């Protein structure tokens, strides 16, 4: 239990840090660490597939993409921000945490615990046999994404 709480606190802290840091590189690394912690939490809660996805895709692949992009872009003129930015977000965040604490304390006893069932079959089986219809939707999302890239990065035809 204590390990989980520690992991959760770490997740929240690194996420906040990712938002607060001015330096993009630091922010990206913080995000990666947060995802890594999330992946570990998934593993500990007996959801190995999603844990593996989280660590490989979000913590790994996306971070690589971020860092490559940051390395490729030039450091332009620093955009000035009002000083309020540095303290308003933490302030709002603290207020949110306080509200969250009270709401959750009010609710926590009332949520009936779902009996813990082990995952039915393998990941593939779940996707193919039980959530077949979701696949159609996911095909749609992928289609939309591919088409969007085709459409938005098209060259303007000269004759049109």
């Amino acid at each position, binding site marked *: 239990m204590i390990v989980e709480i520690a992991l959760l606190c770490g997740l929240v802290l690194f996420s906040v840090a990712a938002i607060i840091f001015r330096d993009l590189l630091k922010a990206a690394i913080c995000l990666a660490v947060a995802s890594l912690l999330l992946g570990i939490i998934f593993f500990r809660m007996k959801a190995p597939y999603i844990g593996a996805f989280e660590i490989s895709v979000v913590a790994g692949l996306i971070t690589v993409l971020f860092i490559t992009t940051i390395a490729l872009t030039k450091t332009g003129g620093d955009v000035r921000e009002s000083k309020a930015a540095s303290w308003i977000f933490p302030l709002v965040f603290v207020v949110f945490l306080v509200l969250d604490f009270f709401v959750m304390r009010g609710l926590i006893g009332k*949520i009936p615990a*779902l009996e813990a069932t082990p995952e039915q079959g393998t990941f593939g089986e779940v996707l193919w*046999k039980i959530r077949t*219809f979701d696949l159609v939707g996911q095909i*749609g999302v992928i*289609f939309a*994404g591919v088409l*969007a890239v085709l459409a938005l990065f098209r060259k*303007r035809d000269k004759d049109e």
Partner: protein
Amino acid sequence: MVFLFIALPLVVAGILPLVGKISKKVLPDLLVNSVFVILLALVFFEGRGLVAQDAAIKQLFWFGEPLNIRLMLDGFSLFMLFAVSLVGFAISLFSIDYMDHYGSKANFYALFLVMIAGMNGLLLVTDLFQIYIFLEVAAVASYALVAFGLGQDELEASFKYLMLSAVASAFLLAGIVIIFGVTGGLDFETVSQGLRALDARYLVGLCAAFFILGFGLKAALVPFHAWLPDAHPSAPAPISAALSGLLIKVSGVYALTRVFLNVFGLTPALSTVLMYLGVISMVVAALLALGQTDIKRMLAYSSISQVGYIVLGIGLGTPLGILGGLFHLFNHALAKSLLFLNSGSIQMSTGTRNLDEMGGLGKRMPVTAGTTLIGSLAIAGVPPLNGFWSKLIIIVALVQAKQWAFALIAVLVSVLTLWYYLVIQRKAFFGQLNERWSAVREAPFWMTVSTVLLALLCIATGIFFAGTVNSWIRPAADALVKGVQTTLGSLGF
């Protein structure tokens, strides 16, 4: 066969980019329009029969083997499918001429069809997570479509739309997850029964709030509306028409109604919140519309205001209120698509969307002027056009439910609506012809065909509205009322 509603647009969308390599314009035009004709035929010949047999849930088979794809088709979904196919057909007709100068037409059509597939899927699903997935299908396609012009404004509007939609999706997902956690299922039936057996009203209330944010943002109800006045005007006109006419209704109003009326049950608390949201949207957006000079922005605000009417009617929860709300949804889909398409005609002919720069266009573009007049009057609720009847039904329902204040506001807002539509008429079409536009010509053939079709539908629905109501809208309202009656009462809150 019902699966074709999703599969056909998806498959055609898949082959369109390839077809686009062979023929840039003619084949894609033909293909897309025939898809909509087939969809309309499916609605009429297949769907109505199925609904009449009361075969609500369809199990799909693959070579005799039962597949785990179940589709639900009741009066409400069929009615929405009808609206989507009809308006989609008008939009695809309009695009034949309009999208010529944008380039890469095949891709445009493909995205449009994916969006239609997403909406059709959303209309047929049976569980909460599938709602989320198909919502995303339609939404991802619509982000790209809003940015299709590739200008600065378009990209910015699309980005804002994307970011706000992502927030809505996140909260929706959170709500779905909580529901899954407490009931152990995602199926509408399972969830509905699970919630009834459960005593966790504050938790369910929290989920309801998440859903209201999620669907309310998609439907552009007032505190959640801010993306719409940027996104809808920036898109190409056919897409503005599809977004305002269809997307906000399917992914916002339909999903909201389905979840709250058939799954959660419309409790007094929810009903109150929905009605207030509806009224606030109506009033605030109408006042904002009055101050616009950009014709498409004005129309966009008007969409928010009219969605307010729809949500007010449905949120009232009485059979007549639901009937009025759904009828208004249909009428608004027709008329608002018509108006957005016409704004596209104007933009194409004059190159501006600023009302102050127009003037006297009625003389140069008589068809556009006439159809715009019909659309405006239909939305403003002038008899004998369709909008009048639906607003009348909503107001009568409010009076019957003794909601005097809401009825009064609804009447006053309809006067405001009339006002800003008259402003469009006066500034754009009437009055002295601006010298700049002396060479302006009427829109091309297919564009006028599409707008005239929609205008005639507005008139026909108005005059033969008893027929429309009885054959399409009453079954839809009945399906919802049945849902309200079975889910309501036994639930704890």
